[in-house]
């Protein structure tokens, strides 16, 4: 009753200093990742824990405007991928040819894990991505081009467990669903190509290699891309770990061991590590499940059915068709949650009404609901919860509601899509 009195039940009180972690705080390792056999540390690419910044955070804090610009590019390419799949289904009944703009924009790729590859094992930092399927790394001799990366570039000729894949193999034919491009042939070796909408791409040989997770979990013959021509926003990292739903994704290739189950906790700030665990080890008993929705069938995305949003204990009056028409998905590589326009409008107005005690501030990029919190030590924000099909109600953490540019510009961390159908 006391908590309800003071409104604590339906709101978070946040120390504003926690929204601006100092870039020199020492790294705090996730105990879960350290103590679970099938767990990897997840580090923030630009933080003090990242192997790419050798212990100190990158001097220049990430450029928020750039992060949000790239985030929008990624969202646009996810939408185009979905609409292409949708028109593919429509195309069976029609003969309209549509421009294929496939691949997903890479975005800012903030979360990195270290995976052992080859014999002898080489530990390489890979960005993990639930929104794409093909795992790839840069490979010597970089026949065309390689971007700069922290660790030495993998050299397949120095690994005794490396094999190129022939063009006639089933894995080569399944490249089109994993990358949006059919495999091609070079001297009877299968060649892959994956293009990300922001001019990032990787092209090279489809190969098989030994992967080692957390030093002891060894997987022989994992299909992956050995990139001889790589360009784009990956600077520093060695490649990408594809966690999508296609048969070439890493969870699908290790299904006999982990049954396509994995879980993660993202680091809540750049000076902490989170974890990525394969299999069921350590999964919290309080997990609430929702079925993967059919809207994303035929794509590699993990679809969700959102049925409602609650702000500060008040359920928003949003017709369920607002969510069901465009559908929803979850993506580790998208930074800011995108909502259908009507849902975002309802969230924004309810949130603003419960934040009326704070002065408004200018919006930034895709975020249009911002507050000036200069001079304050704490901020009290209404709790936001999502209801998913199957009865799961998920209350977001205090760091899941705000995106802080500076004290005078702290914004609601949601954005509306451009139209009701995407």
């Amino acid at each position: 009753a006391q908590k309800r009195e003071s409104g604590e039940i339906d709101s978070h009180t946040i120390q504003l200093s926690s929204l601006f972690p100092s870039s020199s705080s020492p790294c705090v390792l996730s105990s879960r990742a350290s103590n679970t056999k099938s767990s990897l540390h997840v580090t923030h690419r630009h933080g003090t824990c990242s192997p790419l910044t050798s212990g100190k955070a990158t001097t220049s804090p990430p450029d928020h405007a750039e992060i949000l610009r790239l985030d929008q590019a990624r969202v646009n390419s996810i939408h185009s991928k979905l609409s292409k799949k949708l028109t593919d289904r429509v195309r069976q009944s029609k003969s309209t040819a549509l421009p294929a703009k496939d691949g997903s924009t890479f975005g800012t790729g903030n979360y990195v894990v270290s995976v052992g590859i080859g014999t002898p094992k080489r530990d390489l930092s890979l960005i993990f991505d639930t929104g794409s399927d093909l795992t790839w790394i840069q490979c010597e001799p970089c026949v065309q081009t390689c971007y700069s990366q922290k660790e030495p570039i993998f050299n397949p000729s120095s690994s005794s467990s490396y094999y190129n894949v022939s063009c006639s193999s089933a894995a080569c034919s399944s490249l089109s669903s994993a990358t949006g491009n059919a495999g091609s042939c070079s001297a009877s070796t299968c060649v892959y190509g994956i293009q990300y909408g922001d001019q990032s791409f990787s092209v090279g040989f489809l190969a098989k290699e030994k992967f080692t997770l957390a030093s002891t979990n060894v997987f022989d013959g994992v299909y992956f891309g050995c990139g001889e021509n790589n360009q784009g926003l990956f600077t520093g990292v060695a490649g990408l770990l594809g966690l999508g739903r296609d048969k070439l994704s890493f969870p699908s290739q290790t299904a006999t061991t982990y049954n396509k189950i994995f879980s993660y906790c993202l680091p809540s700030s750049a000076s902490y590590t989170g974890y990525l665990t394969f299999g069921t080890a350590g999964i919290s008993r309080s997990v609430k499940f929702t079925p993967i929705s059919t809207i994303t069938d035929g794509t590699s995305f993990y679809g969700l059915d959102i049925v409602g949003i609650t702000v500060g204990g008040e359920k928003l009056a949003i017709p369920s068709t607002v969510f069901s028409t465009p559908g929803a998905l979850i993506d580790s590589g998208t930074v800011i949650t995108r909502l259908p326009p009507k849902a975002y409008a309802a969230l924004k107005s309810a949130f603003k009404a419960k934040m009326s005690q704070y002065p408004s501030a200018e919006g930034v990029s895709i975020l249009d609901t911002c507050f000036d919190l200069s001079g304050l030590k704490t901020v009290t924000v209404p709790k936001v919860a999502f209801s998913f099909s199957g009865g799961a109600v998920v209350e977001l953490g205090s760091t899941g509601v705000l995106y802080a540019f500076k004290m005078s510009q702290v914004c609601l961390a949601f954005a509306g899509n451009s139209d009701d159908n995407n």
Partner: protein
Amino acid sequence: AAIFGNVQQQTLEVVYDGAGGRVGFAPNGCS
């Protein structure tokens, strides 16, 4: 489609069960 992004995923333990055809969330599952 709506997209549940990684800012909102912070402090949640997110579970992908590809074989079971479901996704799970554990609020405060990361502490």
